[in-house]
Each structure stands twice: as structure tokens, then as C-alpha cells.
């Protein structure tokens, strides 16, 4: 089994990568501007919906219901899709999905063709997750990304840093330089209009000549067997309409029970993702339609670690995600570091819970800590995933797994935490330790603040000042107060008087 999430296995830990990102002022400015713009637009479009909370609850309920019957709905989807002329393949992991795609591409390529085989692709995070482009390139197949941002990332030999706007870390001059270098257009200006026009021209001929497309899917609809792709630029429609062969890669959690359920997600997704009332285009199709669009349609249903998340109800919540990226835009950590620091194509709060779980905490162990647990992600999530709760749960798992190893057991942190637990369990030990700390801290106190603690605590005080433990604690005061008995009533009247 090879469960992979992009290149996460090789990525450095979050604190190390984040440090590097924080030194890049250009990147931080770009990320901040982009996330602020989307956040504001989102807030505007959500505010005008009096039934927003009901839509969120319904979205969460539909997803929870689907996941609780995932086998049933997947089989229903397969039946209906195949009845309409589609062909469904199942892939246990990244390698299996890639080899299915490669075999299909080979099958549909004329045997005598000598030119390199090209495929056009429309924005699919799932294909980044399984690193499909690398797999295709190894086989001599040329993947052409057609979403403007994906194209910027691909031509710039970069990695996506956001799940909806993958190139948001680049500004217009950086993009102009990438386009100048790869499109043979030395005169190109950095005006967004010109850059967009250049992309249109560059891709139009490729859309017209390419016979095979690979897409992702936002929703796979069980009761009709249809697939839905949500997009803005029209590159999706091009890829879904013009080629002769269409291969659609779908994570198994993308299935929804019925066509009618779109009434929830097509309202919450665009508003959450780009702050639009509706994105310019949604495409829905079912199998093959004679005389309209690709006449060969294949779906690859991908597991790649997803089934493991079903077992635990809290982890299962992660699979409700509709990839709107609202949690990224809202996250105070993401807004400072951008996406690359997460070392996974899934970044931000959702990345911090998704990547480590898909790979069973083998990699991305630092990601559950890449959060302040402020809760902004949960508040904006259109399917109500309680990300902070899942993060805490995962931190617990990381610690428990660490404790199983000798290195973890003898680690400073573990010993400190165990000691803390012993202290907190006993009133006497707790008070004694407070008295000790009060004496110990004297050596580090500067102008009434602790600014430079030794050892592990130094990591904390390197960027923050700490108030020293006061000479008189609440517990001391409580003991020494004048035996006045407390009652809820007297307390309330006091509160009122103040």
C-alpha cells in the first residue's frame, strides 16, 4: 500500500518550514492580501443569507449521513453511472489510481502515434494528492494544467499553496516572468488582463487538439450517477466537453445521495470558496451523451487512506470537507505562513487534520500543532467540521504514539508532562511547586516580566514575554480571606453593585 499525500513524506516539519516562509516578506504580503480579499467577500455574501446556519447544518447532516452509508451510496453511484455509459474503476491507493489512469491513456492513444501524448487537466487536488503529474511524466505523458493558477504553478515548477487559489503566493510580476519564460512572449506586461489573455490564447489551441482529459469532481451524485464540477474560468467546461476521452478522479468521500442535495452545496460552496453568490460555471453530466461531449468516460474512485478515517467518528468528520478553503483564509497561522510550510498540498486547518490522518500520522506529525486552536476555521466551515476538536484529538494520538517508543518515553517533553500530571494531581505538590517556581523565577525576571527562560521554556519566551507567578496566589488568598462564606446570592449582588 502506498498512501501518499503529495510530497508530504519528504517535507520538513511545520515549524522549520514556517520559519523559512516567515522570512519571505513578498510571500507573506501576497498571502495576506489574497486571504483578506476572499475573507471580506465571503463575509459579505454569507451575511446576506438569513438561512446560512441552516444551510451549514444541512450540509453537515447530508455529509454525515452519506459517510454512515458510504458503501451503499458508492454502489448506487456506480450502478447509475455505468448504466449511462460510464465505466468506474476502484483504486486502493495513489499508485493504483495512477496506473489505472496511465493504462487508460495508453489504451486510447493510437498505437502508431509518435508525438508525445498530451492530456489536459482541470483543477483536481486529488490528482495532486496522488502526484499524478509525476506519474504521467515518468511514462512520457504530458499533463497540461488548464486552471490559470494551476498553470502558473506548473509552468513555474512550483507547488500549490492554497486549495482554491493555488498560486495566491505569487504576485503579477512573478507571474509575468513565469509566462514570459514559458510562452515565448517576451513583450508580455504584468497587467492581469494581459496575463489572462495570454493564458487563453496559449490554452485554446491545446484544448482543441488534445483528445484526452483528466478532471476531478466536486460531487458524485448517487441517485443519478452524475458528476458535478464547479469552476469559474471555463477551462473545466473545455476539458469536460471537447476531448474524446474523459477520466475523472473522485475521492470516495465526494459522493452525495441525491441530485436535490446540490441545493445545499451549490449555495454554500461558492460563497465560502470565492465569496461569490454563484461561481460562473457548474457542469453536470451523466455517463456518456451521444453527440455531446466525450464518448468515453471513466471514473476512478480513490480510497488512499480515506476508509481508515471512517472508523473513529471524530476523524470521520474530516471526510465531510468540500474543499472550499474558507478555513485557510480564516486561519491566523495560514495567513502568516502561506501553504507551503504545511509540506502537503492540503494546507491550512483542513490540511493540518487531513494530511496526517490519511498517512496515519507517519508523516506530517507536526501539523496537528500548526494551529492556535482559536476556532475561526470551525466558524466558517460550511459543513461544520470541528477542526480544533479534531486537532486536539490528533495531538493526543501523536503523544500516545510517542509514548510507545523508548525515545518518546525518555523525551524531555514526555518527562515534563508526566511530572506536571503528578503535580496537578496533588494539592500539596502543586502548592509546593508554586513556591519553588516563585524562587526559581527570580533569576529570570526583568522589569517584572520573564523574557528569557532556560531549556524548553525558552522556545515560548523567545517570542513572548511571560508574567511571573505572583507572590500571592489565588489559592493563598482564598485560604487567608476572612472566613466570609460564599453563596451564589451574595456573589450575584456583588456583581450587580459593581
Amino acid at each position, binding site marked *: 500500500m502506498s498512501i501518499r499525500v503529495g510530497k508530504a513524506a519528504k517535507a520538513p516539519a511545520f515549524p522549520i518550514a514556517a520559519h523559512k516562509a516567515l522570512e519571505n516578506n513578498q510571500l507573506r504580503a501576497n498571502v495576506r492580501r489574497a486571504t483578506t480579499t476572499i475573507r471580506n467577500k465571503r463575509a459579505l455574501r454569507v451575511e446576506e443569507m438569513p438561512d446560512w446556519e441552516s444551510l451549514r447544518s444541512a450540509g453537515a447532516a447530508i455529509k454525515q449521513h452519506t459517510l454512515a452509508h458510504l458503501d451503499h451510496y458508492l454502489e448506487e453511484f456506480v450502478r447509475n453511472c455505468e448504466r449511462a455509459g460510464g465505466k468506474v474503476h476502484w483504486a486502493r491507493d495513489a499508485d493504483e489510481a495512477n496506473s489505472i489512469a496511465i493504462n487508460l491513456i495508453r489504451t486510447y492513444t493510437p498505437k502508431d502515434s509518435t508525438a508525445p501524448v498530451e492530456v489536459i487537466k482541470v483543477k483536481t487536488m486529488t490528482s495532486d494528492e496522488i502526484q499524478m503529474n509525476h506519474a504521467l511524466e515518468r511514462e512520457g505523458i504530458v499533463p497540461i494544467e488548464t486552471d490559470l493558477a494551476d498553470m502558473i504553478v506548473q509552468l513555474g515548477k512550483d507547488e500549490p499553496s492554497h486549495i482554491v487559489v493555488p498560486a495566491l503566493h505569487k504576485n503579477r510580476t512573478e507571474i509575468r516572468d513565469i509566462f514570459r519564460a514559458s510562452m515565448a512572449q517576451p513583450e508580455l506586461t504584468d497587467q492581469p488582463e494581459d496575463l489572462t489573455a495570454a493564458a487563453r490564447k496559449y490554452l485554446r489551441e491545446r484544448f482543441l487538439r488534445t483528445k484526452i482529459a483528466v478532471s476531478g469532481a466536486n460531487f458524485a451524485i448517487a441517485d443519478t450517477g452524475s458528476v458535478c464540477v464547479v469552476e469559474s474560468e471555463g477551462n473545466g467546461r473545455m476539458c469536460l466537453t471537447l476531448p474524446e476521452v474523459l477520466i475523472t478522479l473522485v475521492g470516495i468521500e465526494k459522493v452525495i445521495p441525491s441530485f436535490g442535495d446540490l441545493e445545499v452545496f451549490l449555495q454554500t460552496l461558492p460563497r465560502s470558496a470565492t465569496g461569490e453568490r454563484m461561481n*460562473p460555471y457548474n457542469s453536470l453530466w451523466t455517463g456518456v451523451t451521444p453527440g455531446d461531449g466525450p464518448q468515453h468516460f471513466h471514473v476512478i474512485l480513490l480510497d488512499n487512506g480515506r476508509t481508515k478515517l471512517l*472508523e473513529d467518528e471524530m476523524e470521520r468528520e474530516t471526510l465531510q470537507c468540500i474543499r472550499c478553503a474558507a478555513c485557510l483564509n480564516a486561519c491566523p497561522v495560514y495567513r502568516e505562513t502561506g501553504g507551503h510550510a504545511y509540506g502537503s498540498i492540503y494546507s491550512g486547518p483542513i490540511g493540518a487534520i487531513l494530511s496526517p490522518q490519511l498517512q496515519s500520522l507517519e508523516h506530517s506529525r507536526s501539523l496537528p500543532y500548526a494551529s492556535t486552536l482559536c476556532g475561526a476555521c470551525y466558524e466558517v466551515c460550511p459543513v461544520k467540521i470541528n477542526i480544533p476538536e479534531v486537532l486536539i484529538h490528533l495531538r493526543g494520538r501523536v503523544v500516545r504514539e510517542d509514548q510507545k517508543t523508548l525515545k518518546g518515553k525518555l523525551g524531555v517533553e514526555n518527562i515534563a508532562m508526566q511530572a506536571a500530571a503528578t503535580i496537578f494531581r496533588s494539592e500539596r505538590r502543586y502548592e509546593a511547586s508554586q513556591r519553588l517556581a516563585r524562587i526559581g523565577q527570580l533569576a529570570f525576571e526583568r522589569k517584572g516580566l520573564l523574557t528569557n527562560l532556560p531549556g524548553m521554556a525558552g522556545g515560548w519566551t523567545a517570542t513572548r514575554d511571560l508574567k511571573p507567578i505572583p507572590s500571592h496566589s489565588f489559592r493563598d488568598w482564598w485560604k487567608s480571606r476572612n472566613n466570609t462564606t460564599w453563596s451564589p446570592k451574595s456573589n450575584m449582588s456583588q456583581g450587580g453593585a459593581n
Partner: protein
Amino acid sequence: MTAREEILARIQGALHVRASDPANGHGKIERTYTRTTSMNEHETIELFIDRLVDYDTEVIQVASDSEIAGAVAQSMTKAQETALLAPAGFPQEWLPTSIAITLDENLSHVTLDAEKTVITTCEAAVASTGTIFLVHGGTQGRRVITLLPDHHICIVRRSQVYSVLPEALAAVTANATKPITTISGPSATSDIEMVRIRGVHGPRSLTVILVS
């Protein structure tokens, strides 16, 4: 075990506590969001026009079918366009006689790519989001014909405009397995510094002829 069997077995193994009948559970999902509104036709149309304009869509209102051809000519003259593509079997009386018409009889992609303007009807529309539903085929055309040309002119009847998305979706459910495209304004991107640019790969302009 095949991949299918194995994935299904993993799912069944993971879902140790099985909930009851799926259809029953799905029916019980609480849907307290707005599924119909009490907006009257006038309010709905006002809202629809407001949303269309917000997306840079040109709106021409006509009182009857007999004025459609004139509105088409008006929009094309303004855009300095001289040839019009229409789905095969499109009603002749809606097409201006002053303009060269090409009917899509399975035209090749290259031929279609040279077309500048296309006209179709639609299946339904949503006022609150400014969205038009095309259920492809017939006078709504194959998917490709409203994709390659630069300018899409769409005829929308006032009676086809619903106030909210759930109503419009319900209206197209009977045709759910045909190819469907929803269109909300011209194609656009905000990928470069979040500046909204109109017209990327799909049509750069959209005209709605709203017929009473």
C-alpha cells in the same frame, strides 16, 4: 480481492455501528433553509436583473416573442458582430433576418471556434444568484456551442425565473441525467492578485434577453 471488494470491505469494517435504512435517514435530514419564497414575479425579476448586471451581463427586456429578433440584432450591432450560430432547429422567427445564420449541424470544433456569437434558450434561472440553467440539447444546444464562441445570447422567459436555487433545481430534476451547465455571468478568474478578470476560456460576454 478486487480493489472494489477491498474498499467496500474496509468501509463495512469501519462502519461498525450501522444506521438504519439509508433512504429513510436521508429523508429525515432537517432542511430548515429557504426552499421556496413568497416573492412575487415582479420582485423576482427585479432581483434577477440586479444580479445579472452585477456579473456584467447585458440584459434586454422584451414584451413578446416577436421582439426577440430585434433584441438579438441590437445586442450584436452594439458588439459589432455580424454572424450568428444557433442550435439546429432553432425557431427562425427569433433570428434577425439581417444577420448571417449558421445552424449547428454537428459542426466541428474548429468550425465552432471561428464563430463569434451564439444564441440559445434555457431551462430555468435563479434570481438570487443570477444563474441560468442550460439542459443541453434542442434549442439549448450541445455543450460545445455555448463554450467556444465569445458572446452567448440567451433567451430567458420570465416564467422560467425562480427566486432561489432549490426551486430551480427542482424544476430541472426531471432532466437531471442530461448534460447540464449552470451559467452565472461570463467566465472569470481572480487568480492573479484577486483582481476579477472577465472572460477567460468561456464566453467573454453574456447577454440575457428577458421575454415576458
